């Protein structure tokens, strides 16, 4: 049985979906030109990943193995539609800003990845936490990329101007290629750090 602490540590750091597993990068590249977009996308994904993992896990013992993927897709799609309906009804402003991104959540491989890799073998509550943790890891990486892109691309953070008029926006930052560079740099840096940590730990054990 995994402890919640371990689950979060895995989802956010050690097994971060974007920078370690390299999944869900399609949307990580697409929506990170503004921090607000990234945050909304991240929260939506956390909700969907958590609850779909929970549901998949709940019915895992009754689901025939060979149709489980069909069932998972159905569950994920249903939750994404629920998010969409909820936003339209109660947060119309948010729904407007989110627009096409809500539908994009369905195609995010993190959700199905967690359902397959974790929820299929573990009890519901843990699966829920696992989904939320992965979603959180994804959100953090998105916000990191979006921070750099929005800062250099617009001179703003969450739409608030932080760099003065003297700043010349770098158009490349708003364009998709910038996300590629930044994502690669983040993966590089974090892998280097994680490798180092591993070495240190090994060294300690050896002593």
């Amino acid at each position, binding site marked *: 049985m995994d402890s919640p602490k371990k689950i979060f540590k895995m989802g956010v750091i050690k097994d971060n979906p974007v920078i370690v597993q390299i999944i869900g990068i399609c949307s990580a590249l697409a929506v990170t030109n503004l921090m607000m977009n990234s945050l909304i996308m991240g929260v939506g994904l956390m909700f969907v990943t958590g609850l779909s993992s929970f549901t998949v896990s709940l019915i895992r013992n009754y689901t025939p193995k060979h149709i489980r993927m069909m069932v998972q897709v159905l569950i994920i799609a249903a939750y994404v539609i629920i998010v969409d309906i909820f936003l*339209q009804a109660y947060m119309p402003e948010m729904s407007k800003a989110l627009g096409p991104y809500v539908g994009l959540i369905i195609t995010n491989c993190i959700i199905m990845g967690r359902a397959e890799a974790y929820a299929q073998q573990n009890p519901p509550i843990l699966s829920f936490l696992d989904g939320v943790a992965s979603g959180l890891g994804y959100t953090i990486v998105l916000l990191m990329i979006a921070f750099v892109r929005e800062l250099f691309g617009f001179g703003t953070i969450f739409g608030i101007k932080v760099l003065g008029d003297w700043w010349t926006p770098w158009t490349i930052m*708003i364009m998709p290629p910038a996300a590629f560079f930044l994502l690669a740099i983040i993966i590089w840096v974090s892998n280097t750090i994680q490798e180092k940590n591993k070495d240190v730990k090994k060294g300690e054990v050896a002593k």
Partner: protein
Amino acid sequence: MKKSFIFPIIFMVLITAIFTFVLAFLNQSTAERVALNQEIELSRKILYIFDIKPPSEKPEDVLKVFDEKISSMPYEDGLVYVYHGDEGQVLGYAVPVSGPGLWGSVEAYVGISHDYSTILGIDFIRHSETPGLGGRISEDDFKEQFRGLDLTKASDGNYIIYRPAPGGNVDAIAGATLTSKSVSNIINEDLHRFLKERGNS
């Protein structure tokens, strides 16, 4: 797990039915709210086009002002909104315009004065342009430029011309040339059609 042929089918049908039922229920129970939200949204935009400021941004105030000042009449497939003054005289029209943008269709309303001589304002109802680039057409800085543009001087239906072209009257969005171009085409074409139909009569 049972290795039967029929069980997976029943299971799938059952689970689909359950989720469809839940979604249908949610959709049904929020339909009214969603429709109301959309109505408020549209009312806000029409008021913005005519530069009418409701006493507050609250939905009730917006709808009240909208009901007092705006009426609608059918035009082509949609509606033209008519702006009435206090004595019921017509002050302007909001004409629906639409066409292809860079990524998807763009729908907007253009407000023109009652004598068809100037643009009162413009707002976008729906578009799917890139946020931060083409999506900036729905920002105030871009939309405000259209207020008070003279329609009578334009030739061949070129009402919107981007600077620095000769006769330019509006600034395009930097980094979103194609979206800007689509917007001017859409407005020029649809407005021309409307003015030809009404303006000369």
